[in-house]
């Protein structure tokens, strides 16, 4: 998106740190102090031990389940729902009792919606983490990688139950670790295997394939190559996809009966695995069960096309909708040189001169906008996390529910829509109405945006006819929308 206003002076470093890289200022932030060492402010967050983790060992997260337990809960609920449906379908011996059940009552399940409850608790934990983060750069990285390796709760109840656990188990531990490790954790995770249908993929020459006459499902293999690693122009062929799909057969989740292992956990099912060696991207991988797929993933994680693909996406996310080619090239070089060290990449982003000189032109993505707004306003009425989940849905980006495996778009054009802006106006207004206590919105502008706020914004807020209108104007100001 073109710049709204040409701006020759570099942006306020505090805003670069808090808005371009982070989740927005909070009332206690001192923009002047941050600006004095903005790079240091961001790097300090990257240095904190385990900063990205949301651990279920932590009492603050009591009640969150690991993915195996979450999936088991969903499996149990699903079995109950099925039993209930079967009961309803049974012709009853007592027609009078049947007649007493209204059609509405029949349609409504009495089984508790455990998946929705689990998902809501996970959402609350995600929001709390974002609201309490320092600059929020690490949480932005979590959001970036979670969207890169997205799953969707719309796929089914299993994913709804474990989407949050997936992020905590496969994304968060690695956002400042190694890309290959994240890739392996993701592709082993039941959420991803279920989301991209790999539990249905069976090697045609495997024992199960021969017996049941079923075969490959290429979905996961294709998306790993196209979306997770090499990129659509990464130089792979249909033959590579088919071959890779064979390599990945047998990667699945143990079912409710537990024949293959702990129900809901990852298992390698030898019976479904395509036997023999496989050729992928010109390299031959000898037969080796699960190790064959791990070896292939480890290689493509380090492929030059993967480095370029990841570098391009990171630059688009943190620098600009259309990032300068030299930024992408630099990040790709860092990726390759450090063997995909994501902390090194985060530091490289912070050290990039472009990050501090490009105008703050990109729109905040829905999640980032909503978090920035809640961080700015502080305590508020309104039932959480439902209120925030509703906002994200209204903005077209419901949490953990992207339209496809390519995730939510990462370009301002996607958000600067008529409905999008109108919805932001509604949310800003609602936020202003529900904020617990608001001070002078002009002072808030100074605290949150600082000296670089435009004269027009300053004036619009000063002229507002009430504090709440002034706050809503602040939350709608270009300086608050763009980062």
């Amino acid at each position, binding site marked *: *998106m*073109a710049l*709204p*206003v040409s701006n020759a002076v570099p942006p306020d470093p505090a805003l670069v740190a808090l808005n371009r890289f982070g989740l927005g200022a909070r009332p206690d932030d001192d923009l002047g102090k941050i600006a004095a060492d903005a790079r240091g402010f961001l790097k300090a967050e990257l240095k904190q031990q385990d900063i990205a983790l949301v651990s279920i060992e932590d009492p603050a997260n009591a009640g969150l389940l690991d993915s195996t337990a979450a999936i088991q809960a969903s499996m149990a609920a699903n079995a109950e729902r099925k039993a209930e449906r079967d009961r309803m379908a049974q012709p009853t011996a007592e027609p009078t009792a049947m007649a007493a059940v209204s059609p509405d009552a029949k349609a409504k399940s009495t089984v508790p919606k455990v998946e929705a409850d689990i998902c809501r608790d996970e959402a609350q934990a995600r929001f709390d983490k974002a609201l309490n983060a320092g600059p929020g750069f690490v949480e932005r990285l979590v959001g970036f990688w979670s969207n890169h390796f997205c799953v969707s709760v719309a796929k089914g109840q299993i994913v709804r139950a474990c989407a949050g656990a997936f992020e905590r188990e496969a994304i968060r531990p690695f956002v400042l670790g190694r890309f290959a490790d994240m890739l392996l954790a993701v592709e082993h995770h039941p959420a991803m295997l279920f989301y991209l249908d790999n539990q249905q993929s069976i090697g045609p020459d495997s024992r199960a394939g021969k017996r049941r006459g079923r075969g490959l499902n290429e979905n996961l293999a294709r998306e790993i190559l196209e979306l997770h690693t090499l990129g659509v122009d990464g130089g792979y062929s249909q033959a590579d996809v088919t071959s890779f799909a064979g390599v990945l057969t047998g990667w699945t989740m143990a079912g409710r009966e537990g024949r293959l292992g702990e129900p809901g956990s990852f298992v390698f099912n030898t019976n479904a695995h395509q036997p023999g060696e496989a050729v992928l991207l010109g390299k031959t991988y000898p037969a080796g069960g699960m190790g064959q797929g791990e070896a292939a993933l480890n290689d493509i994680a380090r492929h030059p096309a993967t480095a370029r693909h990841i570098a391009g996406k990171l630059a688009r996310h943190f620098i600009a909708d259309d990032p300068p080619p030299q930024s992408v090239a630099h990040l790709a070089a860092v990726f390759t040189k450090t063997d995909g060290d994501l902390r090194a990449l985060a530091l490289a982003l912070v050290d990039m001169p472009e990050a501090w000189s490009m105008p703050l032109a990109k729109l905040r993505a829905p999640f980032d906008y909503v978090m920035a707004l809640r961080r700015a306003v502080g*305590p*508020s*009425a*309104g*039932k959480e996390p439902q209120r925030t989940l509703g906002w994200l849905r209204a903005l077209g980006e419901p949490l953990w529910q992207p339209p496809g495996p390519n995730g939510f778009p990462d370009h301002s054009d996607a958000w*600067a*829509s*008529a*409905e*999008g*802006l*109108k*919805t932001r*106006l*509604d949310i*800003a*207004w*609602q936020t202003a*109405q*529900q*904020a*617990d*206590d608001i*001070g*002078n*919105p*002009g002072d808030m502008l100074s605290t949150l945006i600082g000296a670089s706020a*435009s004269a*027009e*914004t300053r004036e*619009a807020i*000063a*002229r*507002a*006819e*009430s*504090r*709440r*209108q*002034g706050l*809503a*104007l602040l939350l*709608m*100001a*270009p300086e608050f*929308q*763009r980062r």
Partner: protein
Amino acid sequence: MSLLCETPNPSRRAVLMTGGALFAWAHLPRFARAADRRDPRLIVIVLRGALDGLSTVGPVGDPDYAGLHGDIALSLSGPNPALPLDGFFALNPAMPTFARLFKAGQATVVHAAATGYRDRSHFDGQDVLESGLPGPGNATTGWLNRALANLPAGERVAKAGGLAVGPSTPLVIRGAAPVLGWAPQALPAPGDALAARVLDLYNHRDPLLAAALQKGLDADRMAMSDEFDGKTMKPKGGLDNAAGMRQSAQGAAKLMASDDGPRIAALAFDGWDTHVNEGGATGRLANLLGGLDGAFEEFETGLGQRWQDTAIVAITEFGRTARINGTVGTDHGTGTVVLLAGGAVKGGRVVADWPGLKPAQLYEARDLAPTSDVRAVLKGLLADQFGLSAALLGDKVFPDSAAVKPMRDLTT
């Protein structure tokens, strides 16, 4: 409709706008109607944005009025004549209910009134108006709540607590005394005023966002005017439009009419900051005044028998310039009107020590000069309705205001 108990405790406050749950009065001890016949009620309507008193109650008998207020001045002649109140003042024709009440002796105007605040910032002005403090500052409690808190604990007014109408609690009724929150709907859509301001800002700073937002608003408007599918119309509930004002008054009246309901309520209506195309007998301000008039009517109807013990007072942070500006509106000023209505009001009078509108008579050569203190009116109402002493009013309710004497005899 949700009705939830609100106290200053933030966690309780957080419950306020969650919607759904219904808080009944059940936990409050029911108390019988007082032995004495009177069961007074006081309703405060805060008009945020600074009401143009000269376009609400026009001094049509002042020879300088028409010249200053130009095209938007009220007039007794023409297609939309103002409603005469006495030989000198006439009411905006958008307010037929108030005119009827005035004739019936149930409505009063105090003109050329202002708080002690003499600058022209909305935020600070509203702070002073609602906090009751002598100047702006970090106010956290309002004068109406402090009045409530200073009533004897056994008093039925204190027992029932206050009522805050709208999605957020107006400062005027915030404080230690218990306050119930009620809003016509959980989430009012932002009014046109905010949308227009954001668009204006975008037009100056961010044309791309301006274009997108404009389209979004247009689509919204089309949806709302779709007469074939009335049910899909978006609710228009922000309290800066006539329908929202009426609706909130209707709900508040229902709650206050109950024997064990609150006796004291605060509402806040927005949108009075009429810098551009203010309009006179018709137009933007007239539409808002119509909403306020509708609120008076809803209270009169909804309170039923309790109307006779009720006083409603509408106040604003300051007035607007006597002379219209270059965009057929008015800028921030000083003196304005206080409107009183209700069965308990000793009505049919415009109370004014009229300062005149000659250049030398205007405050800082631009505003209607204030000759009455809004606090005097409010103190008088609190003294008349609830028997609060002048000493208490001058110390606890309106701190450091002993010099401002309560204006008595505002009620019957």
